[in-house]
């Protein structure tokens, strides 16, 4: 496999990428910090400005002042790829973790350096090499960079799905695992509210007229813990609980829990729902109680199909040709916008960003050499796809 010179030349860009990543990480872009998101979007606009023929557009999103950035190049080309990323981070404006530090010459610690400003930079660097290649005319690309992935992509989900539908392939620049592995599949997730109404009464006597909603909810929460053992691949998290009042001698008539459920396969959803109904039924039948579960699996699982298998095999081949240490791909419990791409029917490879770890904590770091390596792989893949060296991707029906 011959490596085009501009892709080889990325090897000399290490210091430049490190400095750009540091400056991006120093712009706080917590999901709720709208002024910071705007500054980060402007930095991204400047990074995409040099691409001749690319149309840069700010996309207004419903229900939030935060906006997405869309960069589209050659929409008329025969092959179309969607490059997906988010520029928000989990670190709010007042979070203590705001600055980068070099842990060693190859490791940069900082907010968002892996998740996923490092991924955005990998995307930009890959395009900078790819756009120098004559075969680039055969591939049109559309980068959609969103401001709310860390808070569930509620505002940008519709535009992500709409964008996904006009492409043949998606590349999601979430970080690779610390082992270098990509993401083969992701769990789907749904947030639910479990509400119990009982009956208030003065708690002076046993028995009394009261029906304790907190105790009933506690029973339900303990029972829910059995679901992961019964349904492998399903996770249950009781993330929040509240109920009762400060009047300690009153039997509480209300309690509520917030649940986060995760499923591995699309088919798990029906199984989980059936299991939940079975669990809730005896509680709903209890005299004096009413039990309600609301919520939806709004983020379906990202399952791996033949198209993903084919793209990943090519990705590995490109890595091998570039001398990148071998990597595999793994299942992960966390969701990403890759789930939405899959839900829209777009085959996509996820975790194509740099290698890192410690995400969502002040231990987050990025392996600097992987910025170059992963950008080279992405550029080489696009080059080979543009030259017709990759067989047509299996299409979802």
């Amino acid at each position, binding site marked *: 496999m011959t490596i085009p010179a501009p892709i080889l030349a990325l090897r000399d860009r290490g210091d430049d990428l490190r400095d750009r990543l540091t400056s991006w990480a120093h712009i706080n872009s917590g999901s709720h910090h709208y002024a910071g998101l705007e500054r980060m979007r402007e930095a991204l606009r400047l990074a995409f400005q040099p691409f001749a023929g690319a149309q840069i557009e700010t996309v207004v999103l419903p229900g939030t002042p935060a906006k997405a950035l869309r960069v589209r190049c050659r929409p008329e080309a025969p092959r179309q790829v969607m490059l997906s990323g988010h520029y928000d981070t989990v670190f709010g404006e007042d979070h203590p973790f705001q600055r980068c530090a070099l842990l060693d010459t190859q490791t940069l610690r900082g907010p968002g350096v892996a998740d996923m400003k490092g991924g955005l930079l990998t995307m930009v660097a890959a395009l900078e090499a790819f756009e120098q290649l004559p075969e680039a005319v055969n591939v049109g690309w559309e980068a959609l960079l969103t401001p709310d992935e860390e808070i569930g992509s509620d505002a940008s989900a519709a535009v992500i799905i709409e964008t996904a539908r006009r492409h043949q392939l998606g590349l999601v620049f979430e970080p690779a695992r610390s082992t270098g592995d990509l993401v083969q599949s992701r769990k789907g997730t749904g947030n639910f509210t479990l509400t119990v109404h009982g009956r208030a009464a003065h708690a002076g*006597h046993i028995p009394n007229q009261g029906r304790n909603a907190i105790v009933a909810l506690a029973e339900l929460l303990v029972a829910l813990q059995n679901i992961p053992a019964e349904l492998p691949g399903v*996770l249950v998290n009781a993330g929040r609980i509240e109920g*009762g009042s*400060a009047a300690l001698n009153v039997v509480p008539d209300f*309690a509520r829990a917030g649940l986060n459920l995760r499923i591995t396969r699309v088919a798990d959803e029906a199984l989980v729902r059936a299991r939940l109904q079975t669990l809730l039924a005896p509680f709903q039948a209890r005299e004096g109680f009413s039990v309600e579960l609301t919520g939806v699996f709004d983020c379906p699982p990202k399952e791996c199909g033949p198209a993903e298998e084919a793209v990943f095999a090519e990705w590995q081949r490109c890595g091998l040709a570039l001398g990148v240490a071998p990597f595999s791909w793994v299942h992960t419990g966390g969701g990403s916008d890759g789930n939405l791409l899959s839900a829209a029917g777009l085959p996509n490879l996820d975790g194509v960003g740099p290698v890192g770890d410690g995400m969502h904590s002040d231990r987050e770091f990025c392996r600097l050499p992987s910025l170059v390596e992963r950008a080279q792989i992405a550029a080489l893949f696009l080059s080979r796809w543009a030259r017709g060296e990759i067989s047509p991707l299996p299409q979802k029906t």
Partner: protein
Amino acid sequence: MSSTARMLERMAERESAWQLLLVRWSEVNSGSEHAAGLARMCAELERAFGELPARASRLAPAAGGRAPTLSVRCRPEAPFQVLLSGHYDTVFAAHDPFQRCKAMADGCVNGPGLADMKGGIAVMLAALTAFETHPAAHQIGWEVLLNADEEDGSHGSREHLIAAASRHHLGLVFEPSPVADDIVRSRKGTATLLATARGRAAHSSQAKTEGRNAVVALAEFLLAAQALNGEIDDIVLNVANCAGGGAVNVVPDSARAEMHLRSSRVAEGERAIARLREIAAMISGREGFGLDLAGGFNRPPMEAQAAVAPWVAALQTCARELGQTVVERDVASASDANFFAAAGLPTIDGLGVDGDEIHSDREFYRPASLGRRARLVALLLARLADGSLERPALRPLST
């Protein structure tokens, strides 16, 4: 016609006025945590009791208290001193939907605090207003003591209650009657307990591996705690509230719940707390988890007092005269009578109105009971004042 008979006759004329005043009080929200509402209620009471020939003073709450205890004192130099006690807070918060009174089909009235215990305060006011017209009234000194945090444990007022107990010979507490015309002989003690579960936070995708869910640990603790109700006779444990966690995609590392425990005997109460500590230790023994239990008994049990018997006999004599039957009852809920009894004051509790379903939006009282109770108390005071009923021996006061 005797002075006493005239007093009772005049009381009948004012009965509906007291009932109207009670409705007005009920609709002034005075939830234990609603400082502005408590201030309004305190002002209402000051104005109402200000009609009596007595001196009102506001006793400042201890640190953390939201409103004063109102003391209305008359003839502190008289040889026989009676304490009449109640609370003007309710369990209904400012934002609770239950704020208004309404007449029920059976003649009862539904409303917040009507029975527990603004009705009892109305009984006191009606009884004392009548008694002060009696020519023998000068024989008795009395003090009305109304606190603002009984439903919250009386933490800000208990020092005032205990101090007041020592300056009286007899305590009358106007919590609602246990049933019909009955009164309260004993009450359970109450403990407030706070359970705090600790776990380890992680992203919810790592719920099975990294995470240690504090909400679930708390739920297990609460189920075991609730089961003590069947395990230990004579206790009542109520899981009253809980809070914990935050974003649902994070395994929560902290959760807490408050519990209320009642026991009529100290030994049983201590056994329950020891069992709770065992359960907490069992959960704390799990890797990555902790469960702390804080708190203890707040009001001591009120056991039946030998010294109160002659006073109850006198009350029953008056009741018979009025065609009422007063029976002593043992009840589960604690009141400030627990403090008075523990301080050695012979105390009769449950002298307030007849009602039920307290602490819920079904709370109601029987309007006729306001007048019945007021006549009973006014008659007891009149008979003890004019000597037409033999007065039980007075306990010596420390000061």
